[in-house]
């Protein structure tokens, strides 16, 4: 199985929780955005209760949780927006 590189960006509350604004991930082929969220829930206690991922962006566009990641993708979880 091929390993792919994905760039994971953290913003707002997620950056505070992760303690970083970016992480390079090596993921298996077929990995979805939702899979990455589950791994973050396992890693960070503050996310354990968040069974559903927030909004998701792949390559700067909104995407579904079941989106299968490709090599070189930029992934970001988008907490509830509060602009304006």
């Amino acid at each position, binding site marked *: 199985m091929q390993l792919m590189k994905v760039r994971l960006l953290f913003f707002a509350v997620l950056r505070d929780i992760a303690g970083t604004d970016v992480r390079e991930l090596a993921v298996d082929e077929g990995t979805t955005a939702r899979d990455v969220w589950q791994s973050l829930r396992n890693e960070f206690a503050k996310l354990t209760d*968040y069974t559903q991922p927030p909004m998701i*962006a792949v390559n700067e*566009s909104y995407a579904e949780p079941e989106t299968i990641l490709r090599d070189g993708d930029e992934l970001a979880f988008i*907490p*509830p927006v*509060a*602009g*304006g």
Partner: protein
Amino acid sequence: MSYLTDDPIDAHALVARVMRPSDGAYVLFEGVVRNHHEGKTVESIFYDAYRPMAEKEIDAIVRETTAHYPDVALAVVHRLGHLVVGDSSIAIVASSTHRAEAFEACRMMIDRIKDTVPIWKKERGPNGEEWVGWQGRC
């Protein structure tokens, strides 16, 4: 042309950029840091953004609004970083021959921007700070 800035917003310049001699009206909306939110005192706000995506999303909203109101000229800028009470976080100008379209386009812009653009705010008050919208959503 960026829709995001780290500097104070100059709404007057934004209006000047938009107005055409055929425009009979403009509507300017500014969002301003207020001293309270859901019963709590607010002293300052930190605005964060996924900048390249926010630029794209705002641009898409400008295009949608223009498609809906072809006679309206639009400009918008959102400020990021630390803002205190009274500072403007966003300014939107919509100008048009007639006032109805200017009002409606301006309202459509701010409603959609608040809905989809990846910008976040952390409110700071006497009892600490909090990312707005995160607590209790799980």
